[in-house]
């Protein structure tokens, strides 16, 4: 820090926009597509790519509000458990309370939002650090899912319910429309609204944001609630796709979600990040999984790669950041 900043004459070897995280990532993504396509003829087919979109929706829906949360310098580790809890309550309220399925879906979305709201309330009112609060509810929500379901699964939903998870709409997987709408809305909110600017302000300097009169606590409450709601939505899509509910659903989602967000250039320290970055990050993670699967690597080994990608991308991002700051 004590070093004198480099004078303007220091030569830039590469233009600045090439060094932007999203650009680099998009280039890597293209290269990966070409290499994987060359390795396996089944990879670069429209069918396969659309199917990958189907599979990424559940994680993608959660990654959008997670981008908001990480931009504010927070984190939500409980999302996977909320998916489990909502999935269980969807099945349980339908089967055991006799709710009509549409009502059961609303109920599970409501529970997701409530679970997120509880995170938000304790984080903003009691000032429990988000990391700790969501580790606690990671245990609590998964525990409720296990306790309520008693490890029993629910299946046999009506046929129409499988539409969102398994059918196509205008030739594109139905749930992908949901994700696309969510992406566009999130991008507009983050980029073009006061709400979005507030998120960056909180992430850059929360105290300053507070003293500038920004509604810091209300904004945080909203994004954690949103995170829970989207996890609930993700649970409904997941149940519709796999046709059953089990209490272990969504285990490990927090890894995929956080890896996609961080890989997409959102700084884990807050203040920096875009929805487009997250979208490219999501695509990278899903292609990685698919590419590895096609080359015969088993599912368990792919999480090794995702874990390594998470650590390495944070390393690269933070060293780039340090260079930009002239340290």
């Amino acid at each position, binding site marked *: 820090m004590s070093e004198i900043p480099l004078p303007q004459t220091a030569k830039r070897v590469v233009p600045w926009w090439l060094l932007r995280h999203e650009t680099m990532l998009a280039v890597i993504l293209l290269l990966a597509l070409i290499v994987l396509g060359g390795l396996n003829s089944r990879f670069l087919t429209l069918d396969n790519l659309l199917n990958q979109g189907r599979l990424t929706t559940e994680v993608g829906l959660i990654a959008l509000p997670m981008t908001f949360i990480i931009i504010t310098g927070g*984190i939500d*580790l409980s999302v996977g458990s909320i998916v489990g809890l909502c999935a269980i309550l969807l099945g349980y309220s339908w089967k055991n309370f006799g709710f009509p399925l549409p009502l059961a879906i609303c109920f599970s979305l409501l529970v997701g939002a409530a679970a997120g709201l509880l995170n938000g309330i*304790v984080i903003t009112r*009691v*000032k*429990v*650090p988000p*990391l*700790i*609060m969501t*580790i*606690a*509810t*990671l*245990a*609590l*929500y*998964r*525990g*409720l899912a*296990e*306790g309520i*379901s*008693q*490890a029993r699964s629910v299946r046999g939903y009506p046929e129409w319910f499988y539409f969102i998870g398994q059918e196509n709409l205008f030739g594109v997987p139905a749930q992908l429309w949901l994700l696309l709408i969510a992406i566009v809305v999130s991008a507009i909110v983050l980029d073009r609204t006061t709400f979005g600017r507030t998120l960056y302000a909180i992430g850059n300097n929360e105290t300053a944001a507070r003293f500038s009169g920004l509604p810091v606590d209300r904004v945080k409450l909203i994004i954690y609630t949103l995170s829970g709601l989207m996890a609930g939505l993700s649970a409904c899509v997941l149940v519709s796709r796999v046709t059953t509910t089990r209490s272990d659903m969504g285990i*490990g989602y*927090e*890894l995929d979600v*956080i*890896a996609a967000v*961080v890989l997409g250039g959102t700084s*884990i*320290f807050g203040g920096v990040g875009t929805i487009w970055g997250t979208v490219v990050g999501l695509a990278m993670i899903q292609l990685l999984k698919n590419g590895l699967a096609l080359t015969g690597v*088993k599912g*368990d*080994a*792919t*999480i*090794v*790669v*995702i*874990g*390594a990608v*998470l*650590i390495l991308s*944070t*390393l690269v991002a*933070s*060293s780039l950041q340090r260079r930009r700051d002239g340290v």
Partner: protein
Amino acid sequence: MTTLTLAGTEADPRRRLKVLASQEALLAIAVIGLAIAVGLYNPRFLAARNLSDVLLGNAYIAVAAVGMSMVIVSGNIDISVGALIGVLATISGTLAVNGAPIVVAWLAALVAGVLVMALQGAIIAYLRIPAIVVTLGMLSILKGGLISVTGGKWITDLPDSFHLADIELFGVLPFPVFLMILVTILAALWMRYSASGRAIYAVGGNAEAARLCGISQPRTIVMVFALHGFFAGAAALLYATQLRVIQSTVPPNLELTIITASVVGGVSILGGVGTVIGSTLAAVLIAEIASALVFIDVSPYWIRAVQGVLILVTVIADILRRRRMAGA
């Protein structure tokens, strides 16, 4: 002026000791009170066999929670420890089955534990990547690696001499319980009275002040993680040797149980405060609750929810208490 003196008393070691003592006393009362209450409802709970099973089967959690407490006191977190314990147990068991000397099999778990955790500590301390990112990544590397290498196969036909957990000292004291008590006392004394032990509190309490006192923050963090890895290795040995088989998968959510023990034991999640005596008592309490559920005819599937509530209540109480002490 008032705020200044109040802030001063908070740092006063005597005052802090009193607060901590109360947390530990509270836990001890809870452990005994719960035993009596459940015993009244169902006397079979108090059978010597059950109580010793509870202690024996969960001593490894208390041992791992000692290391976790140090990590949290230093202001960090580790969610990879559950996966690491699974990996270390498998390494040790594989060596033992393939004819390596038993002592080598035991040592391998300890050494590998120290290496993995020291590496994580170094990435956190020197490359300044948040602990949650590093350990979340490592969690999936270890978990995925273990299942893909072993294919989830169980290790059986372990040599008899491998079973550390079977040893009974003086014919009465089972080794896991002995180790749990020994590790807790040594770690508590070391953290309280040695300079390097105090450094953990300093780094967790106020990193800048610690630096000005000449304490190297990165070095302290690497040391804490290395020690944590050692305790994880010891925990893995107890875990691996208590049954006749080692399930070569990661025990699900083990890290959550260990973190719960540390936090409920009074280790402040804001860093800088807490003792390992509390975390060991909390580990015993959690194991006792899990066993009690069965005896009061509640499904054991509720245990994770109980753990979640316990962490939540302790964390909120800790923060409210700090706020009151700060005179806010």
